[in-house]
């Protein structure tokens, strides 16, 4: 692949049933793989935000954005490079409780990684780590020898350094109508 870069696509949209399908269909039609995907409420009431990470040439990302914005229920879509955003991922690690007590080293791993222990039960405990991919990935590798019962990592969530201006777009609509 030529000149692929990591881009974070941010989509502000209405929260309508089926929109997720409509957006994913745009990627499918162009045979583009989604590296990571997350959706949540945004800073604006009743407006949802998708954060999608792709590895693509910039020209293709631009065209993707045009196709996404074309969708009726999409208010605005943007793409940004890593340098233009602040982004994090969360990971959860489920480990046997016995290893916490029997393997002294695991305590150092947890301490060094600045991870949090969120649940402890007689059978297992759960560690949470939020950070960059490299950090959660390092913790995963460090914990692997102790036997991971479960591991999960969230999609990237990201905010941009620059202003998004969604409220301005919505206010313009109110003014015109």
């Amino acid at each position, binding site marked *: 692949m030529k000149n692929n870069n990591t881009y974070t696509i941010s989509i502000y949209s209405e929260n309508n049933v*089926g929109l997720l*399908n*409509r957006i994913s269909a745009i990627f499918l*039609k162009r045979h583009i793989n989604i590296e990571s995907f997350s959706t949540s409420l945004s800073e604006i009431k009743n407006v949802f935000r998708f954060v999608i990470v792709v590895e693509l040439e910039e020209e293709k990302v631009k*065209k993707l954005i045009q196709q996404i914005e*074309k969708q*009726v*229920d999409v208010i605005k879509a943007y793409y940004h490079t890593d340098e233009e955003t602040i982004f994090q991922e969360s990971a959860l690690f489920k480990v046997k409780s016995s290893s916490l007590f029997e393997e002294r080293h695991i305590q150092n791993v947890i301490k060094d990684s600045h991870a949090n222990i969120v649940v402890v039960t007689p059978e297992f405990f759960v560690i949470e780590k939020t950070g960059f991919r490299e950090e959660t990935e390092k913790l995963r590798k460090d914990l692997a020898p102790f036997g991971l019962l479960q591991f999960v990592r969230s999609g990237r969530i990201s905010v941009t350094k620059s202003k998004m201006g969604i409220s301005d777009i919505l206010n313009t609509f109110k003014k*015109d*109508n």
Partner: protein
Amino acid sequence: MKTTENKISENPTKGIKISGAEAVIRCLLAEGVDLIYGYPGGAIMPIYDELYKFQEELQHVLTRHEQGATHAAQGFARTSGKVGVAMATSGPGATNLVTGIADAQIDSTPMVCITGQVGSHLLGSDAFQETDIIGISTPVTKWNCQITKASEIPSVMAKAFYIARSGRPGPVLIDITKDAQFDTFDFSYEKCTGIRSYKPVPEIDPAAIAEAAEAINNAKKPFIIWGQGVILGNAEQEFKDFVEKSGIPAAWTILGLSALPTAHPLNVGMVGMHGNYGPNMLTNECDLLIAIGMRFDDRVTGDLSTYAKQAKVIHFEIDPSEINKNVKADIPVMGSCKDSLATILSLIRKNTHEKWISRFDDFMKIEVEKVIDKDLNPTKEGLTMGEAIMAINKHTKGDAVIVTDVGQHQMVACRYAEFVRSKSNVTSGGLGTMGFALPAALGAKMGAPEREVVAVIGDGGYQMTIQELGTIFQTQTAVKIVVLNNDFLGMVRQWQQLFFEKRYASTEMVNPNFVAIAKGYNLEAKKVDKREDLDAAVAEMIASEKPYFLEICVEKEANVFPMIPTGASVSEIRLN
């Protein structure tokens, strides 16, 4: 005919308690719909029951297959400029709409499809005739929505019509569960005037207009390619004024055909794979390419890496996603071309480009000698498709709506058919849907009943939706149906001849007695296979006031030229 018990409310916005099914009908009437195409079935029966009650206000045309309903709705939309409406039941009824929806999406045809769905309590249970039509239709609709509550019907229907017709038009599908059709609610209707997440027409940027005007005024060899955007934007007059004042030669894409009369001195013909010689060759010679309401389809551009590289490109476009999609626009001019062309007119200098236009004439002389003369004045015994089109031109005085299917006959018809009025060329351009023409012609005639509508169809595509002869007979819609029969899937055969060393894999057809079939549907029908009989046969067909079928047997292995082979440059166009 039964008199309707439920007269339409004088004020459709006044609240009254009615069923969801009746609400659907009232919404259609409030949107000015008086004609729909469809096919009943279990999950949409409540709506059909209301159609029975409202049959005086709203005509329902029963097609013989749901695909026919969509193509008829498309044909209706294309000649009337209104939104076409098609209706079907759940499951197979809904999936049968998909080809027509995909066709309408790629050709930007305003259409609203309404499907019945199983009851909401059964959704996801694999119930009888349940299919996820929302999921299936998502990639091929401008918008779609499932309704599970009767009270949602008015607002969703209003949105559907607004979205289908505004901006760049397209198909919308509304899926209504059976319980939502039965439930009653307080009905009131308000037309949709805007959606906050949707901007149908971008604002015109005066700076872009000024920049474009300067480029136009400075160009030595400017060239216009226009598409369907001119027709969809009702911008024919503004476009003609622009062409005439600027004096710039203008060529059309297949869907732009008829926006400017064929005989207009600045109309230099068609671009693209089977377009005219000059427009294709000179695309790679012009210094300014002015694209208006067209989308640089691959069948228009050929190889993009050698397409108009020497030219500055101005792109008049309503849909921002088309800018830089295939061809980089040096000067994008966003907005409806009706407004942008009207705005730019005062900024451009009156001009003539005689020397430049003479280049088109030179290429046309070559094309006439090498291609057109052979098509229209053949020395061989077999009839050519071109001769058939010329006979239709003659007897319709070049003022018919020509509906074509897909393939050789389509290319020949678009090359040779004459037009004096817009909205006269109805064809499946982007999707290339064989089987489109027969049902589309039915809709086209209903959308423009005062006009002569001639469907020109190949023997292959005709048999894909031949059952719609039943609909034409039942409705006595006076379409003229011409099948150009070469007993082959001609375009595929042509490719096999040119690029697959004449290995005619599954392209030869043993055809039925088409005249007998048409007569079986009680249509007037005739067959002609001799040159001396052609003129009289076409004259008789056009003179008929009823639906009429004419089979014209043509040369079996004729090829359509000029031709740009796939992946070749527009300037590598072949004349033989």
